């Protein structure tokens, strides 16, 4: 019950209130680059969601067992080699390198998997699939998960981490598809010459961001809503 409320709050927070693109500005490059047509935008959004979930799963496992302060694996090794007790080992200095490795590996893995089992989907993604490696939204999701694994009293479990990734990915998909829909309409409009291309796209994004600000505070109502519904 309490778990459900927490998960809903994380998901809605990541997807709508603090939308990855429109609030944190991560993933702006594909947001501006791949938002010319709705169908490619949708494919890109779902691919990002998928990679983000896998990267979040792997980075949670690595951070929880290996990198966070007081992680079990280094402590076990420390004891096995006969180190002094009462020492907290903190390997988080390695986390950025580890995340980049994890992201690059999962993109490679997803690419191989999709090419083997879904050739049609692979063809429609084209060059965008490998480009997900440098998508900052994915590294951002890993960093958010790391932030919630630093404080030993309030650790995030795997469900929270996965919810953040899926919610954030779906929020990204929503934003990029909305953007693509608006840009398809914009093609028919007479945009001032200097604003054509990225300029008008940024202004549209600003208006979208303003609209998404209206979601602020939605998470506070979740607890009461869920309690009423459960009764």
């Amino acid at each position, binding site marked *: 019950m309490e778990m459900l409320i927490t998960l809903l709050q994380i998901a809605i927070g990541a997807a709508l209130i603090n939308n990855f693109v429109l609030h944190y500005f991560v993933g702006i490059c594909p947001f501006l680059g791949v938002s010319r047509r709705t169908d490619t935008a949708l494919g890109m959004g779902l691919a990002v969601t998928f990679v983000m979930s896998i990267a979040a799963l792997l980075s949670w496992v690595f951070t929880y067992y290996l990198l966070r302060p007081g992680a079990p694996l280094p402590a076990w090794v420390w004891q096995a080699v006969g180190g002094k007790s009462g020492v907290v080992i903190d390997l988080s200095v390695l986390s950025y*390198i580890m995340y980049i490795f994890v992201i690059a590996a999962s993109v490679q893995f997803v690419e191989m998997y999709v090419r083997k089992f879904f050739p049609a989907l692979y063809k429609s993604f084209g060059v965008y699939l490998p480009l997900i490696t440098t998508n900052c939204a994915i590294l951002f999701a890993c960093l958010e998960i790391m932030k919630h694994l630093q404080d030993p009293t309030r650790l995030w479990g795997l469900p929270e981490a996965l919810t953040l990734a899926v919610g954030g990915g779906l929020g990204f998909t929503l934003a990029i598809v909305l953007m693509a829909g608006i840009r398809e309409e914009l093609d028919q409009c007479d945009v001032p010459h200097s604003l054509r291309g990225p300029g008008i796209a940024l202004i549209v994004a600003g208006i979208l961001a303003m609209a998404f600000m209206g979601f602020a505070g939605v998470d506070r109502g979740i607890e009461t809503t869920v309690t009423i519904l459960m009764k």
Partner: protein
Amino acid sequence: MSKTEPTALERFTNGILPENPIYRQFLGMCPTLAVTGAMKPAMTMAAATAFVLVSANVIISLMRGLLRPHLRILVFTLTIATFVTIADRFLEAYFYAMSKELGPYVPLIIVNCIIISRCEICASKQSVGVALADALGMSLGFALALASLATVREILGSGSWFGVTLLPAGWPHWTIMILSPGAFFTLGLLLALVNWVGRRRAEAAALRARIKG
């Protein structure tokens, strides 16, 4: 690809305006929009990016003979990630409040496309001196772009510049300029301004050429 690679001086001046990473190449948008609510975080970000860009460019240029084509992107990202870790730890140790304010955007320098693109375009092909000049020019261009955005947003949003109050107390703070929509609007309009000035200058140059000829 041109046959003769640009010299060090060309690389340096190209980075500042003709190939400005933000206004001309649209690279590194994420920190540009995220940290330009005020001058102080924007300049800290510019300095951290400059450190990483210069170090990564120099190191990649030094080992350009050892790079293998299929592994080069991996080598680039790992080099960049190492220097970003150094910059992040340094900020955390000496500028704790600033490091908290920048939050995830310091580690996000790793996936800043400006740095990878400079490693790919310049450092993996040219000597250390040229790579250094290129990195400095690009960093300067990036810093100028961040400064232009942050100036507009901080003055309109909080009536100050670098924390110094400029506008009279009666100024109604345009809070929207500090929030995320303001970032998109400011960058969009500044981009339009740069395009407009560029087109005017090109037209004027064409006119002058026609009068002379």
